[in-house]
């Protein structure tokens, strides 16, 4: 606070007394102590260690809210003007902690438990048993393998999205109409796509796509009968839904490129392909990376179309990790194992995305 640079942003200089500081510390640590004590009492009551009958864990919520409020007040008491600034971010931080961090910690506890909702014994800690089960679970590894195929398909989706964006960025007739028309699949719920396309248009007897396939010479069209075809069909339905999302991001990027750069390239004699490859594409890399990254995240959550259309079949050929976890958790009430699978998948995603971003960073910002 004594540095002149800091003082420039301070409306009033704070003179905080020792008494005020002490009050602030008492408030924050006192309320924290109350929070810990509440959790401890509730935990002991639930474990029947003490003879207290509490219907729910609501007191913990009240203690957390009380501690959050005291924390905010103490920030002002302890740091004055600086503390007031932190009040802008503190509620959001506490909310995230309450709704993301806490559940994640609880989820970790559940992930290392044997907890089948039909078991009379309830939940019990089972160490690494769930990890071992996962290790030897062919359904999970099969689903993970499928996710590699599904994720690689994003490269094709990206190429198509880029092509469509280039078309829409050029001066074609009916550009506005096509912009809206191309976006329509994105507006559809994947569940609607599942029924409209997967179950109706691809219905082997009456579906228009099946009729078209027959007209083209495919005697007994079957879009989900063969593992490879089924996987490709799921990829196409998912791609049809989400290519517009990538397209619209790339289109926004294209429109942000100054015209002068393109014109300068043309003046320098660059043809269409060279202008794209050496000017447009490099300039679009940051947008492209963002679009691909978000698309990867969407793709890793792929489940709804699969659950509705194939249930993961034939023989697991289209199963995704999420659709498998859905069956494990919802149909089999296997909460412990299902949670472990979800946690492992989360870790894999975090690691893969981090590595991907690091590689992209190195590629785009080489350090010589």
């Amino acid at each position, binding site marked *: 606070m004594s540095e002149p640079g800091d003082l420039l942003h301070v409306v009033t200089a704070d003179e905080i007394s020792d008494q005020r500081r002490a009050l602030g510390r008492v408030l924050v640590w006192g309320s924290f102590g109350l929070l810990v004590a509440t959790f401890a009492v509730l935990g002991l009551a639930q474990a029947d260690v003490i003879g207290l009958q509490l219907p729910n864990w609501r007191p913990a919520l009240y203690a957390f809210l009380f501690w959050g409020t005291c924390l905010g007040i103490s920030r002002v008491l302890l740091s004055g003007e600086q503390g007031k600034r932190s009040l802008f971010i503190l509620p959001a931080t506490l909310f995230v902690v309450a709704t993301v961090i806490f559940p994640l910690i609880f989820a970790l506890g559940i992930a290392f438990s*044997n907890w*089948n*909702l*039909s*078991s*009379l*014994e*309830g939940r019990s800690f089972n160490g690494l048993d769930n990890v071992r089960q996962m290790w030897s679970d062919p*359904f999970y590894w099969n689903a993970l393998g499928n996710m590699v195929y599904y994720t690689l398909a994003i490269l094709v989706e990206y190429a198509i999205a880029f092509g469509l964006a280039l078309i829409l960025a050029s001066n074609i007739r009916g550009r506005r109409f096509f912009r809206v028309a191309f976006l329509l699949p994105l507006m559809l719920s994947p569940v609607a796509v599942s029924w409209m396309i997967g*179950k109706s248009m691809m*219905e*082997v*007897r*009456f579906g228009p796509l099946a009729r078209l396939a027959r007209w083209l010479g495919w005697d*007994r*069209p*079957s*879009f*989900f*009968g063969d*593992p490879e075809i*089924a996987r490709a069909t799921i990829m196409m339905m998912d791609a049809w839904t989400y290519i517009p999302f990538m397209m619209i991001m790339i289109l926004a990027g294209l429109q942000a490129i100054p015209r002068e750069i393109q014109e300068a390239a043309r003046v320098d004699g660059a043809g269409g392909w060279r202008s794209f490859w050496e000017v447009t594409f490099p300039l679009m890399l940051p947008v492209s990376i963002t679009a691909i990254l978000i698309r990867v995240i969407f793709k890793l959550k792929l489940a709804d179309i699969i659950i509705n*259309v*194939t*249930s*993961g*079949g*034939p*023989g*697991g*050929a289209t199963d995704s990790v999420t659709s498998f976890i859905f*069956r494990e958790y*919802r*149909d*089999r*009430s*296997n*909460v412990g194992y299902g949670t472990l699978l979800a946690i492992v998948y989360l870790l894999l995603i975090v690691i893969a995305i981090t590595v991907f971003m690091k590689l992209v960073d190195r590629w785009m910002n080489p350090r010589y």
Partner: protein
Amino acid sequence: MKVEIYDYLRRRGALKRRDVLKGMAGAGTLAAFSGVASGIGVRPVWAADNAGLRAEILKIPGVGMGSPTDADWQKVGGMTLGPTRETVAEGEFSGVELTFMGLNNQNLHNFLFRGFLKPWEAYTGATINWIDLAQADYNARLQQSIATGTVDFDIIEMGAPFEGDVLGRGMASEMPAWVAELIDMDDYVGYLKAPVGTWDGKTYRISIDGDCHTFAYRTDYYDNEEFAAAWKAAGNDSAWAPPTTWSEVNAHSKFLVGKTDPLTGLDAHGFLDPLKGWGGFGFYFLEDRATGYAKHPDDPAWLFDPETMKPRVNNPAFVRAIQEVMDLIDAGAYPADQINADPGTTAFQQFLAGTGGALTWWGDVGSNARTSDTSVVGDVVGFDIIPAGDAVWNSRTGAWEEGVNEAPNMAYIGWGVYVMATVDSDSKRQKAAWSAAAHLGGKDLSLWASAYPSGFQPYRNSHFRYEEWEEAGYDRAFVEDYLGSNADSYNHSNAAIEPRIPGIFQYYSVAEDELAKGFAGQYGSAQETADAIAAAWENITDQIGRDNQIKLYKASLGM
């Protein structure tokens, strides 16, 4: 009754005004003879064969007079209040508040219950709060309530397969003797009698519905002279007639490969097996093929060994059923993409739309065949109990026994009303809860529910008195055709009743996954597929607790 049947009858005009009047006149005569006046002056009597009252309630609102409304439900509830008046004093439950958890499918179930119980609430003074759940949310809500110990309801509408989860944990209240007498449980169809609804010899369930699989087939296939001639020309000695055993089903399916459907002019197909899972429900359809081989008349158990919980799903009976499906896959007997067909597809997108010669399903296919706008097979569909095995595997001797063995599959068993043990500590609340449940499961009220849109199937022997339906204005031939195959299944002495053990749908769900792999050719044989299912079932049993499962399985079998 299912909504679609009712709508069909109204649309089709099966009920002419004259018929309604005739029905009313007949009912009036009946009422006069039985000493029961009509209209407001009806004295609700709950004697076992209360023909007058039954005829009267069947006129609310009158078949063909529009869908029943809340006012009609209340009227029915009021007219069938007799048993309550006999057992409860007016205002006796004043101040009692109960919570009822049930479904809200098609705006039926709980919506009807509300109307039925309004007069009961007014008379007894009790109040009922409602928890309405969509079908898809029901299982998760119930399982979570059980697992977390947060049972916030006093009365529940529940399917019998969950009895293991609820009754097995001692969470339900035992039915008092006065309730059993009140609802005339002797009138239940055979398979709904004990041990269904009972646990360790105690009774807990008031049935309000019945469920089973029946066999639906295309009569035009079997009336077709070209097919008959070709069947004979192929060297078959047996008559070209609807199959009664699974061997015949497979023979017919293979024979129909390459033939043309007489109705649609497209490819003809035989039996439609759903080869894709359906949240566990798909396993019922493999059971249909297996019960004839696996359910021995001298043994109530057929899915597990009751002494060890060792799965029987990989015994020769089930392997034979799986093999027969694989044979039809190899023979190209199914429509294209059958590997991606779940039971919903086989019923509504295939059979009713004219693809396939036969299938097994619940009563919906029978009713939809004639009532759905999208059905093209209404005039060419016949019904029977599911086909039999031509041999049965005796698990006790470990040998096949030759001979036809019928074993209808009572898939899902049907809905019931249960009272939770939470009311047992307060005798007033307990009596109130059971009185409300008994009102919903009352004999006369149930006749109305089986005859009008309610979401429930007939489930009492008295529901199959076709003259009552005819009297009410229904087309007798239709009703007999629709209900007959159900009645024969319900009362079959060797009906296969599913184990009511905790987590039964977990077993079914994992079996679906393994079967899908087997049907896709990822296992070397039917035996290997069955072994994979058995191994997965053993894991589930171990996780849920083998000793307890054995105990509960035996209890559910009445052993």
